[in-house]
């Protein structure tokens, strides 16, 4: 089998994942795209391992490690996303912009409990109050 096939597939998968990371709004979808990119790398590793007939099978071992690390990453990542969602009421990446350069009083950055919650808090039924509580405290920490 030509090495070009798996290599090309890996490249295309990687770039699709890249597009996903850069274009998706939901943090969980971004995590999915990251998984795609990791898989592209894994595919490359396996293909080159098979091609080179490495006696140590470094490629395959590394693939296994990558899979394990990806699993760990997805666990931690999801935990972070959940925490952010709980604090901010949103898991949209392009709305988490507290670190932007602000001129004058920020419109919606410093008050995550004000503007964001006005739109999002009604969608949450049981975490609305806690969300507002933690939102203000987190906002204070950020400030």
């Amino acid at each position: 089998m030509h090495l070009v096939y798996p290599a090309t597939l890996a490249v295309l998968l990687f770039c699709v994942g890249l597009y996903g990371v850069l274009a998706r709004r939901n943090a969980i979808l971004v995590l999915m795209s990251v998984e795609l990119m990791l898989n592209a790398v894994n595919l490359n590793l396996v293909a080159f391992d098979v091609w080179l007939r490495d006696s140590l099978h470094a490629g395959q071992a590394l693939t296994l490690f990558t899979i394990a690390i990806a699993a760990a990453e997805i666990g931690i990542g999801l935990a972070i996303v959940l925490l952010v969602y709980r604090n901010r009421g949103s898991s949209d990446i392009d709305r988490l912009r507290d670190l932007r350069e602000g001129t004058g009083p920020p419109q919606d950055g410093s008050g995550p409990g004000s503007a964001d919650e006005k739109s999002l808090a009604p969608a949450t039924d049981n975490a609305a109050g806690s969300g507002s509580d933690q939102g203000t405290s987190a906002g204070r920490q950020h400030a």
Partner: protein
Amino acid sequence: MTLTASHPGFLSPAGVEIVFVLVGLVTLGAALVTVTTRQLVHAALWLVAALGGVAVEYLLLTAEFIAWVQVLIYVGSVVVLLLFGLMLTRAPIGRSPDADSGNRWVALAVAVAAAATLLTVVIDAFRSTWIDVEESVAGSSKVTGTALFRHWVLPFEALSVLLLAALVGAIVLSRRHGQKGSDR
């Protein structure tokens, strides 16, 4: 080592190659839908298809053990985790109009440019490289296990510690604040 003059041409593909390309197309299509669909849950399901396609490609590359690990961990656990995450963040069921951020055109440009560059380089470099998949199975469980536990034991154990740490970290992060206050 495979740059022999008698290497098989592209115009007379072997059966395994045809299968690889077909599965690859399916995988790519599934991945594309994953990153473009407006329905978040569908994206997770399409991700299953894409990851499964990759697993099949592993099989075609005679890396059996990796393929099964891929199926077990990715399709079995990661996607399930993602689905749980979607549910816990109250992702809307059905089409959401704002699944893509305003950055999508920039992202498209970067991705296409990256793809073009990488494809050029990769195709240029490996145009005539040939993998002999019929010769022996490169990634049977036996071979992989031998390599893993003979040469890669220490990293393997270190990785287990990493996994443990990630587990603990995830629990700590996702735990609700303050048992004492109980949020209310």
